[in-house]
């Protein structure tokens, strides 16, 4: 492996005009893409989470909530996906937008936080995760379609933030994101107050997510909740299942002959089986 040394860099500087800029999105192919679109080729669609995600600060920490439906256009791609992502033992992040983008960006920042913890020997802070996320999203100019609700408790206290795809952030006592955010925010604006207890907080978060599940087409299935307090995190996967499958018949389904119309019949007899003789000469070399 040839290690790049000072001398190489000087040589490379002579060809600086050709060297691509580091980091950020490369817009080189935009002209080609536009030309292709004009010609009529369709861009491949991506799976959006079409989501309701929420977070609120309560007396002992932060509670995050999310629905579990992932959509591909009008089709439900995953009826029970996980939208609350692990960032650090004391920090979790809900993701709305393109499923691949939220997954990749939270995994990447989670990895960076772990390396930072090894280097510093300290617990990760929510603002660190926030800054890593927003700088990454900003450098991709909104093309990484990840809208996040980031919450956690660190040495400086409980924190709740929203992060938008272009890289802007807000710090709030309660927040909602995704296609069901308006339905969920209606619940929060009406019932939120400071200093909620743990049970009250979980109840309110579940109510807000249910509001999204029932009133927004892009959200559905179950409620996931994550409670983060100083020193302890509880991930309540499928805390509520308000959409059970109730139509399965216990007797099973029996389709009698005559239920299906026969259009044509063709019978092909199988060839008779020939038994090979037991005594076989050994193969000659």
């Amino acid at each position, binding site marked *: *492996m*040839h*290690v790049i*040394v*000072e*001398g*190489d860099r*000087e*040589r490379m500087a002579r060809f600086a005009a050709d060297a691509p800029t580091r980091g950020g999105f490369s817009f080189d192919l935009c002209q080609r893409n536009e030309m292709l679109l004009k010609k009529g080729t369709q861009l491949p669609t991506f799976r959006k989470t079409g989501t309701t995600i929420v977070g609120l600060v309560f007396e002992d920490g932060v509670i995050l909530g999310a629905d579990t439906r992932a959509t591909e256009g009008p089709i439900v791609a995953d009826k029970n996906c996980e939208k609350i992502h692990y960032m650090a033992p004391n920090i979790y992040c809900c993701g709305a937008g393109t499923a691949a983008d939220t997954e990749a960006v939270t*995994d*990447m920042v989670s*990895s960076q936080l*772990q*390396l930072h913890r*090894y*280097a510093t020997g300290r617990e990760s802070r929510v603002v660190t995760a926030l800054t890593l996320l927003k700088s990454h999203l900003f450098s991709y100019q909104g093309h990484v379609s990840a809208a996040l609700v980031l919450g956690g408790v660190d040495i400086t206290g409980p924190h709740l933030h929203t992060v938008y795809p272009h890289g802007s952030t807000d710090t709030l006592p309660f927040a909602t994101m995704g296609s069901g955010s308006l339905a969920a925010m209606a619940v929060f604006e009406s019932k939120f107050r400071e200093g909620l207890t743990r049970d009250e907080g979980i109840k309110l978060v579940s109510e807000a997510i249910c509001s999204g599940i029932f009133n927004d087409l892009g959200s559905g299935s179950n409620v996931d909740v994550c409670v983060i307090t100083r020193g302890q995190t509880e991930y309540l996967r499928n805390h509520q299942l308000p959409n059970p499958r109730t139509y399965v018949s216990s007797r099973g389904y029996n389709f009698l002959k005559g239920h299906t119309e026969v259009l044509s019949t063709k019978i092909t007899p199988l060839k008779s089986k020939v038994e090979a003789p037991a005594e076989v000469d050994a193969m000659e070399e």
Partner: protein
Amino acid sequence: MGDSQYSFSLTTFSPSGKLVQIEHALTAVGSGQTSLGIKAANGVIIATEKKLPSILVDETSVQKIQLMTTNIGVVYSGMGPDSRVLVRKSRKQAQQYFRLYKEPIPVTQLVRETAAVMQEFTQSGGVRPFGVSLLVAGYDDNGPQLYQVDPSGSYFSWKASAMGKNVSNAKTFLEKRYTDDMELDDAVHTAILTLKEGFQGQISGKNIEIGIVGADRKFRVLTPAEIDDYLAEVE
């Protein structure tokens, strides 16, 4: 790094077929503070002397045993700053492995990648080999494991090993004392006794460091208080 004239490797063969730079690196390791590792039936322990250059140094700010992942730890003999570079690279490699395979990196894989880095520096332009040997201790699906990685990039799996000053005495002592069915606590006692053999001065929780990983797969460095407890048991 060197200037543009040094795009060739500084580690070159001698007529006798040796890589002299690596031999010198091993000498640097051999004059470093003693460190050792013992693989028990239910875990691994690594330990080292922590002799500080002066009594004015704040010993709580120095930690020689480092974590590479939650279940893998490492100790070195030789040049401290060189080990820091390796630990940093290995931590990053472990994270990259996890990102790719969504599986915590097995001990053998991490050792292999660390060894590959050390070998790179014996065959690249303008760089010198690392002046450290590492003892990597970890517990994964294949059970407890102990590996030694040398400046050349070769690695060995050990039941028990020592490096640095006093290595031959320490290894002889370990050979006598080691049993396959040792428990983690016995291994700690054995390690302390081995360090005591070559220790100059009064041994205490402040001038040795011990790291252990058991079946819980959580590598941790013992506090000076815990080490003092073990020392009391040994006496």
